[in-house]
């Protein structure tokens, strides 16, 4: 039945593709993404609806779930869905638990591939040998990270935070043996309440922090690689186009385009001769 349905989706078909954007949160990056995508979808080919919060789902040919909340809601349904603003680990989990496995479903991950992050680390801090990470529970990508670092003669130093080892103690310990603090996504460790102390402590010890978003760099991290909502929107649009043309969604993927941001003031204060963001971007863009 699904196959028959898809026949109607060829570009020559006059009837527009019904696209519903299910958005987890208001404002911020969600809004920028939605506005960008809506801009691109303004053509006769598409009829777009926006579903916010608890709005009724309504019918559509393709759903774009923006954020984990929307993704979780839609994962339970047997409907074609493209997920964005979802970390790879979160999406993988949803996939494992998904009710219907035959429905076209894909994602653009929020995280950058580890290779790209490590490439930035190496390009920004060629002298770094000891990379420190903090987490509350060991993330699945830790093993991969350790291997990638080892391939580049860098060593991973890790501390798991729990009651026996509070954040501040772990941080002091870790900074004592690291050349750089490498952020893993973990809001129990990095949040608006803790970032101040983490950045001040690492700055006092003259250890740079490599973040995972522009916000980290603004706050005082040395650099970060991330994709902007505009870049994700462009990639999502390309995937929607493919779906419209073929009825198939490409496999879940990392963001293609990305940006590198460098806090040049922090770099200078730490006496680090770091190349500018554009050069770092070009260098790590060569990483497959």
């Amino acid at each position: 039945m699904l196959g028959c349905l898809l026949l109607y989706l060829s570009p020559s078909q006059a009837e527009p593709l019904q696209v519903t954007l299910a958005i987890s949160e208001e404002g911020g990056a969600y809004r920028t993404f939605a506005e960008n995508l809506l801009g691109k979808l303004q053509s006769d080919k598409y009829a777009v609806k926006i579903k916010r919060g608890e709005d009724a789902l309504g019918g559509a040919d393709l759903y774009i779930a923006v954020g984990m909340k929307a993704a979780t809601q839609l994962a339970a349904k047997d409907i074609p869905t493209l997920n964005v603003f979802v970390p790879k680990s979160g999406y993988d989990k949803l996939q494992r638990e998904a009710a219907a496995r035959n429905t076209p479903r894909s994602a653009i991950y929020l995280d950058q591939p580890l290779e790209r992050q490590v490439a930035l680390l190496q390009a920004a801090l060629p002298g770094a040998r000891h990379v420190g990470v903090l987490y509350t529970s060991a993330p699945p990508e830790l093993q991969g990270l350790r291997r990638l670092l080892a391939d580049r003669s860098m060593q991973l130093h890790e501390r798991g935070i729990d009651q026996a080892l509070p954040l501040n103690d772990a941080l002091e310990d870790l900074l004592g043996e690291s050349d750089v603090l490498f952020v893993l996504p973990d809001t129990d460790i990095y949040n608006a309440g803790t970032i101040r102390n983490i950045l001040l402590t690492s700055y006092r010890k003259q250890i740079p922090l490599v973040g995972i978003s522009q916000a980290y760099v603004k706050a005082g991290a040395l650099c970060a690689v991330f994709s902007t909502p505009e870049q994700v929107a462009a990639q999502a649009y390309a995937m929607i186009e493919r779906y419209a043309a073929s009825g198939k969604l490409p496999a879940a993927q990392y963001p293609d385009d990305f940006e590198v941001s460098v806090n040049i003031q922090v770099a200078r204060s730490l006496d680090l001769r770091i190349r500018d963001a554009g050069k770092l971007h070009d260098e790590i863009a060569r990483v497959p």
Partner: protein
Amino acid sequence: MRHGLVSLAVYATVLTFGLQSIARDAKAAAEDSRSEQAYLQDFPVVLSASRLSQPLSEAPNAMTVIDRRMIEASGFRTIAELFRLVPGMYVGYAGANTPIVSLNGVTDQYSRRMQVLIDGRSVYLPPFGGVDWQDLPLLIGDIERIEVVRGPAAASHGTNSFYGVINIISRDAASADTGTVSVNKGEMGISDVSARLGKSGEALDYRLSFGYRADGGDNPQVLNDTSANHLLNLRSSYRPDSSNGVELQLGLNNGSYGMGTAGRPEDAFRTIKTRNDFQQLSWLHNWAMGDETKVTLYRIGRDYSDPYRCIDFPTCKGSAPVPGFGHDDASIRRRDLEIQNTNQLGSNNRAVWGGGVRYDSVDQPRIFASSRTLRQSRIFAHHEWRVTESTLLNLGAMYEDDGAGHKNTSPRFSLNHHVLPQHTLRASVSSATRNPMMAELYMSTPRQAYWLNAYVPPSIDIKPERILSKEIGYVGQFGDIGLESRAYYDKVSDIVMLDAYADGNFASRTDSFKNLVDATFKGLDISASYRWESGKLTASYSRQQTSCWFSSYPTQYSNPTVIMPGVTAGQYLAQAYQTDYLNLCNQSVPSNSGSLLFSQNMLETFQFSLGYYLRSKIRVTDVSSGFPPESQMRRVDLRLASAFGQKEKAGGGEMAVVLQNAFQDNYTGYGNVPQRINLLFKRRAYFTATIYF
């Protein structure tokens, strides 16, 4: 609408299943959406431009940084002593409770040619322009780091950044999640206790410190130089949102200081009471693109009361039934408002600019006929231009009105070139002015009343002193070894000095102040540091030379009146100035000075440190030729500490023993009267214990 219909066909079942699934996964979903938040959350600007320090290799002046680790390793318990770690800096004592700190020479006990800032608050005070180091409401343990700019830096650090700048940065309010109690006990009656507690949260942090510091002085039989003070210091910060921060700082210090010299009835043993307080409010706003604006408002109050000051020398010295003593009270106030903007102009230009206004007032009836207020104002701009990847140009100037009729501009220029990534050469020319102090401008005291001589306000306007410093420097890194060196040539013009017998009456002395002397300071500094996993070594050496000459002559320099057989007043004065000032000028800097601080962690819990401090003989300008200079100092301080638990964590702590002048290489200090000249700084030990809770 077939697609919709198809979807509808399965809608009901899916929805039912979906709801169950959502309920079951509510917790997991919350976690997952948090992990999305890890990427999307917003943060406040933590390392803002004003918090970041310039690396040594890009600073427009030579700079020495004393961090908390060095402070601990040094074992010093007073702030003034820390400056022994700065190349070329003089730390002397006119009694254990009266430290003198100066860079370059030609200082007297009212060292007044440096800017001293604590968290941006300028603490050199009228009427004499020095800093009462013992009286600052700041515990040494609350210092995060000290940056000492060695050279004039008015463009970036404001008024009076003349010989240099001492910039003390206290521990951030957010850094005190652990409570601390610390005790020092030891020889010379050392008895200090301090406590610190604090809390840091998402929007509000505070750190509150209390302390009591006391000692019985160096040579209690001869000098009454005891000190005791109670102090309180609060630093709190509040961040209403990610782009604004408000900081409130308060401090209070009540001090009791011994004063008096045995055998000098006019300098009787007595206790002086002081009260110092400050309130400081600052607001920092981070604009987009890394720009920021900071507004700082502060007030400093200092009250000083000497209950038994000699106000009639003949009576004080004699045995008259009514001794000639009286109260000497001073009330000093400073209010200051400053606005400073930092603008990032592309990636290669940064500008810091702003202005401020300051009211200084002094009420001290014994030396001023009426209370005095000076309203000073200033504007400043500093531009950092990265000409190429490896060349940085710093350009800046300050324009100020000293409120006493003088308007000055102090420009600065420096070029830093990274010859290799880790090796930087710096060439700089910088200037600054020192505005005359209230005492120099307005002091008016009868003869043998406050001082031995009478003072009258000068009849000729005193110009601000001016310094022009030329310097070439090098900052380099060889693996783990950091090296910094500079050669400098400073010319100081119109140094304000005593204008003796200003009124021409050679029978009854009345003095004034006048711009009299020019001086040059030449020198070479070198500092090195080496850090390894379990320890650190810093060393510095400084070679200095100075010479002085008259820029204009004392008022009575050519007075032809014969005052002794065959000697005119002018000849007498010429001789006196030659002997007491010009000939001694080259002794006003130590020709050799240096320091070495070594610390090593051992056996997990022990830390051993050794400080070596060298200074050749020196004489400050108010010690006349009849008295010997301060002798050479070659002092070794040792410290052994044993830690338990974790540093700065509840349940942890440390015990330490400090031995100052361990090898009893005793040396003399400042002595301007016969009773003081041979007092020795001897070996002393004290014990310290610190517990974190």
